[in-house]
């Protein structure tokens, strides 16, 4: 069995993640920040530990500006719906996932002006195109860090500095990169960074969130929901400080226990080390697939310029058929079709047929890559 669907969620998880969650359920279990007894305080420590661990992986200066939610999508929605107002202009790329594109389409119907900057057929964004799109009313640049379809890495450091020069906010969708690719919120001038907890940070599903930089005026940030926070209980108004303003309701504390363990596991291995391992495997996969007649690879086809996600098609075989055969005949699990990113597929020329996507992860191996390449070669021969 080969799990090549890490771009959707990482699996397996490091044993320490499972252990941390079991420990929380068996030994802690109380509601963090809602009471002052020892288990509630211990639960609050666990949640705070997750803030620190995530901040450290991302080089975010303040753990209290790490806001947790259900996933990266919630973090992105908080940033977009929470800060953009009618009359504001926002710029994004044509490689975005629907977690950015769909909120932006709703906002555009309600008076926010939207510019989608085109990327090359490999998904590459030219920072000059970004800068040319800036207007006096531009309030935000929102970019995916790396495409979930092709792994193409976008130039976020350049974009961050363009945003800073033009005094506009910079939002990064790091769902595919947090933990797998070096990120420096501080150095790259990132004002808002949405992360997934269950992908390359190796936490469980149901964890993610948003890092909020100090250029973001929290008084102007409208939370997605209001409710109990365990603070200011005497007031019927939502508190105005982070992280409470954005974290109403009982959090997924058991999930965050797992996320803390996962993020610490990432730090122990080092993001650079994880990246080097995945880059080597990606290179092997790319060279293997390139040698097969009938296989077309999308994206940069260069491990230096992409994450460990590779999209391709096989001539004469629908992607759905390829996915079924890979699972049934070879035990290889991957994702096929459109990957919640229609704009990206139009950019790449793979709309509406989609692609076969291999998402390698921290536990993928050279042997698995070789087996998968052989399987694709066999499928390509049958299809021709």
């Amino acid at each position, binding site marked *: 069995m080969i799990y090549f669907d890490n771009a959707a969620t990482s699996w397996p998880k490091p044993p320490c993640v499972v252990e941390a969650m079991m420990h929380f359920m068996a030994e802690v279990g109380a509601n963090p920040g809602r009471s*002052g007894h020892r288990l509630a305080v211990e639960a*609050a420590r666990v949640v705070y530990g997750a803030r620190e661990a995530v901040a450290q992986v991302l080089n975010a200066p303040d753990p209290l500006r790490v806001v947790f939610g259900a996933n990266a999508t919630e973090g992105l929605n908080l940033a977009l719906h929470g800060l953009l107002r009618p009359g504001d202009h926002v710029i994004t790329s044509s490689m975005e996932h629907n977690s950015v594109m769909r909120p932006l389409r709703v906002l555009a119907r309600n008076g926010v002006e939207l510019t989608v900057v085109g990327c090359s057929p490999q998904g590459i964004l030219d920072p000059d195109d970004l800068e040319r799109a800036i207007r006096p009313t531009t309030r935000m640049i929102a970019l995916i860090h790396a495409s979930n379809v092709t792994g193409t890495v976008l130039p976020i450091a350049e974009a961050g500095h363009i945003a800073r020069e033009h005094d506009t906010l910079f939002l990064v969708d790091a769902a595919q990169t947090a933990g797998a690719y070096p990120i420096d919120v501080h150095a790259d001038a990132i004002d808002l960074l949405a992360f997934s907890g269950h992908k390359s940070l190796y936490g469980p599903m149901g964890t993610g969130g948003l890092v909020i930089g100090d250029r973001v005026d929290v008084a102007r940030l409208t939370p997605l929901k209001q409710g109990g926070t*365990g*603070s200011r209980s*005497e007031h019927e108004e939502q508190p105005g400080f982070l992280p*409470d303003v954005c974290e109403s309701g009982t959090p997924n504390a058991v999930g965050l226990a797992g996320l803390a363990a996962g993020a610490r596991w990432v730090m122990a291995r080092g993001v650079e080390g994880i990246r080097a391992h995945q880059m080597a495997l990606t290179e092997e996969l790319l060279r293997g697939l390139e040698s097969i007649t009938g296989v077309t690879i999308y994206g940069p086809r260069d491990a230096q310029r992409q994450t460990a996600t590779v999209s391709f098609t096989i001539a004469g075989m629908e992607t759905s058929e390829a996915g079924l055969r890979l699972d049934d005949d070879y035990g290889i699990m991957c994702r096929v079709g459109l990957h919640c990113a229609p704009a990206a597929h139009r950019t790449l020329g793979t709309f509406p047929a989609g692609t076969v996507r291999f998402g390698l992860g921290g536990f993928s191996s050279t042997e698995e890559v070789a087996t998968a390449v052989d399987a694709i070669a066999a499928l390509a021969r049958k299809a021709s």
Partner: protein
Amino acid sequence: MSGDSYSVILVHSTSHAMRIEKLLGERGVACKMIPVPRQISSDCGVCIRILQQDVEPARRAVAAAIEIQGIVPIQGGLR
């Protein structure tokens, strides 16, 4: 220890309390998380209890890192 006198650091958020607990721990200032005394505030959250003699070191440790509501003395019953 029953003769010791205490103050509590009042904070905006439980997350802030967790940060202060770590900061004080790193500086060797003993502290304990307790429910906010009802006489001080009707807030349902926690605060950080410290020895009266540690008030100034604690204030210095916290000052640069985080905004607090204040440090107030407490009398008896919450040891």
